[in-house]
C-alpha cells in the first residue's frame, strides 16, 4: 500500500536556534506502518541518518532552493513482512489492547470470516479484536470496511499465520456519511 510520506519542516525551529530532534522523533513514532517521512532542514542532517537507519529507514537527501535540504526517509520494505491496512484505519499504534482474541488457524474458509463478523457484532464501538488465521481473509476485508470497522493485518515472520487486528466502528462512523 502506497502512502504519502508525512511532511515535517524543522527549518523554523532551527532558525529560532531550537533543537528539532524531539519533534522529529515524535513525527517518526506517529508514522503509519509503511509510511515515510519527508523532512525539511537548513542543513544536511548527517547524524540523523544513522539514527533513522537503526529504526529501519533508508535516507535520501537532496539540496533545495536557498541552500536548504530535503530528506526523504523511507521504511525498508524487505526487512518486515508487508502490512495490510484498511484505508479508514487511523493510528493503529494508538488502538487499545485487544479485548477479544480468536485463534482461527484450524478452521476451513470461510468459517474464520463468519466467526470474526459474529464476534465484532457483539463488541462495543472502539474495542479491538485480535484474530489469528492461516490465510489472509481477502473476502472479509471489504465486508469489514462496509461495516466501518478498521483493520490492520500481516503475516508472521514464518509466513504461516496471518495476524489481524480489528477496531470496531463507532456509531458516528456507522452513519453512512
Amino acid at each position, binding site marked *: 500500500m502506497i502512502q504519502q510520506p508525512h511532511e515535517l519542516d524543522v527549518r523554523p525551529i532551527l532558525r529560532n536556534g531550537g533543537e528539532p530532534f524531539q519533534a522529529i522523533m515524535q513525527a517518526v513514532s506517529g508514522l503509519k506502518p509503511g509510511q515515510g517521512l519527508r523532512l525539511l532542514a537548513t542543513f544536511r542532517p548527517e547524524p540523523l541518518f544513522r539514527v533513522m537507519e537503526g529504526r529501519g529507514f533508508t535516507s535520501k537527501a537532496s539540496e533545495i532552493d536557498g541552500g536548504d535540504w530535503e530528506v526523504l526517509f523511507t521504511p525498508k520494505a524487505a526487512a518486515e513482512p508487508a502490512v*495490510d491496512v484498511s484505508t479508514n484505519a487511523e493510528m493503529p499504534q494508538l488502538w487499545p489492547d485487544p479485548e477479544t482474541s480468536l485463534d482461527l488457524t484450524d478452521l476451513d474458509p*470461510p468459517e474464520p470470516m*463468519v466467526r470474526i463478523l459474529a464476534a*465484532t457484532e457483539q463488541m462495543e464501538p472502539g474495542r479491538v479484536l485480535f484474530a489469528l488465521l492461516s490465510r489472509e481473509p*481477502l*473476502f472479509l*476485508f*471489504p*465486508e469489514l470496511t*462496509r461495516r466501518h470497522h478498521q483493520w490492520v493485518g500481516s503475516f508472521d515472520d514464518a509466513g504461516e499465520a496471518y495476524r489481524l487486528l480489528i477496531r470496531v466502528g463507532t456509531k458516528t462512523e456507522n452513519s453512512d456519511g
Partner: protein
Amino acid sequence: MPGAALSRWTITYFAVALLFLFLGETMMVAGVGFPSAPLRAPETLMLVHIITIGWLTLLFLGALLQFVPVLVGRSLRAERLALPALLLIVIGLVCLEGGFAALAGVVSLHTHDLAVGAGALFLGILIAVTIIGLTLWQARPLTVPARFVAIGIGCLVATATLGGTFALELSGINENEIFSRLVLNGLPIHAVLGLGGWMSFTAIGVSYRLLMMFMLSPDSAARVSRAVLWIGAGALMLVAGGIAFIIAFAAPLNASLTIAGIFAIVVVGLYASDVVRIYRRRVRKTVELNSSASVGAYGALVASALLLTVLYFDHGDNAIAALIYAFVFGWLTGLGLAQLYKIIPFLTWLECYGPVLGKSATPRVQDLVREKDASVWFVIYYASVAAGTICILLAQANLFRSACLIQFLASIVIVAQYVRARRLADVAPALQLPAGTRRPNLFLSRSS
C-alpha cells in the same frame, strides 16, 4: 487497499458460458461438425468456436474477474469494462458463426460477417485482457500462479490476433500474401496457443491457488510449479515462433511443434505429480466434490498427453480430433464444471449472506449444495467423454453422437445443481432468507 470483493459480472459470464456449452453439446448430438463433417469444414469451425469462445473463454474470463484479485490480493481494476467486453465477445461470436455458416453455404449471409465478428471479438477480448492485465500490473512482482495467468492472457491476445488474420483472409476483405500463408499453415499454432496457452496455462495457474485454498495444502513445492511455468512458457514461445517462420518461408515449422509437444508432455507429468502431492498433503481431511470431481479432469489431461504421443505416429484427422475432444471436454470442461460446483455456491453465499454474517443465523456454504446428488453425474460425464474419445478414434460417428447425448444430459443435471444453489433451493427454509437478505438473481450478482 488489499481485499477481494464480489465480482459484479462473474455470474453473468458463467451463465452465458453455460448456455453456449448447451448449444455446443446440442450441435454435437445433432451431428454438426466432425466426425459427421470433415475436420476443417466450416461446420466443424462453427462447433469449435461455440465451445472454445462461447463456453470456455467466457468461463475462464468470468473466473479470472473474480480470482485474479484473490491471486494478487488487490481489487479489480476497470471493472466497469467487464460488461462491454462480454457484449462485444458475444456479438462477435454470433457474427463469426454467421460467417462460418455463410462459408458452409448453410445460410445466404455474407462472408464479411467473419471479419466483423472477428473484429468485435478481438476488441472484446482486448478489453477483458486490459481489466485482468491492469489488475495484475499493480501487484508486481507477480507470484507464480499470477504469472501463469499473465502468460495465459498473452496467449489469448496472440490467438485472437491470429484468428483475426484468418477471418480477414477467409472473408475476402483483405487478401494478401502474408495472411494466406498464415491461413494455410497457422491453424495448429492458433489451436495450440488457444487451448494450451490461454486456457490450460490459466487453468493450471488458478488451480494451483484454488486447490491449496480449498484443501489447505502447504504451498512449498515452488520448484515444481516454477518448472511447469518455465518449460510450459518455453514450449509456447517455440509454438509462437512458428508464426514468424510461416510468414518468412510459407511453410509450417513442424520441428518446433514436435519439440513443444515433448515439452508439453513433460509439463503435464510435472503438473500431475504436483497435483498428487497437493491432494496427499492436504490438511483438510474431507475432499469436497469440486476437488474430487477435478480428478477426472486431471486424468483426462494425462490421457491427452498420451494421445499427443499417438499423434506423433498418426497424423490422421481422427487422432487429432480425439485429442482435441478429450482435452476440451475431459480436461478443460471437466475442470470447469467441477470448480463451478464450488465457485457458484460460494459466490452466491457471499452475495446473499455476507452482509448479514454475525447479525443473524446463516447457512454454511456447503448447505447450498447436495454433493451426493451431483457426484454420480460427474462420473457419468467423464465416462461419456471417455466413450466419445474412443468413438472418434474408431471413426464411429453415430456412436459418438450417442456418447454426446449422455454427456449433454450429465451436463444439464450438473448445471441444474448450480441453478439450485443460486436459487438457495437446498437451504433449510428457516435459514434461507434472514432479514436483510434477498434471493440472488440467476444471471446477475447484486453489488452491495
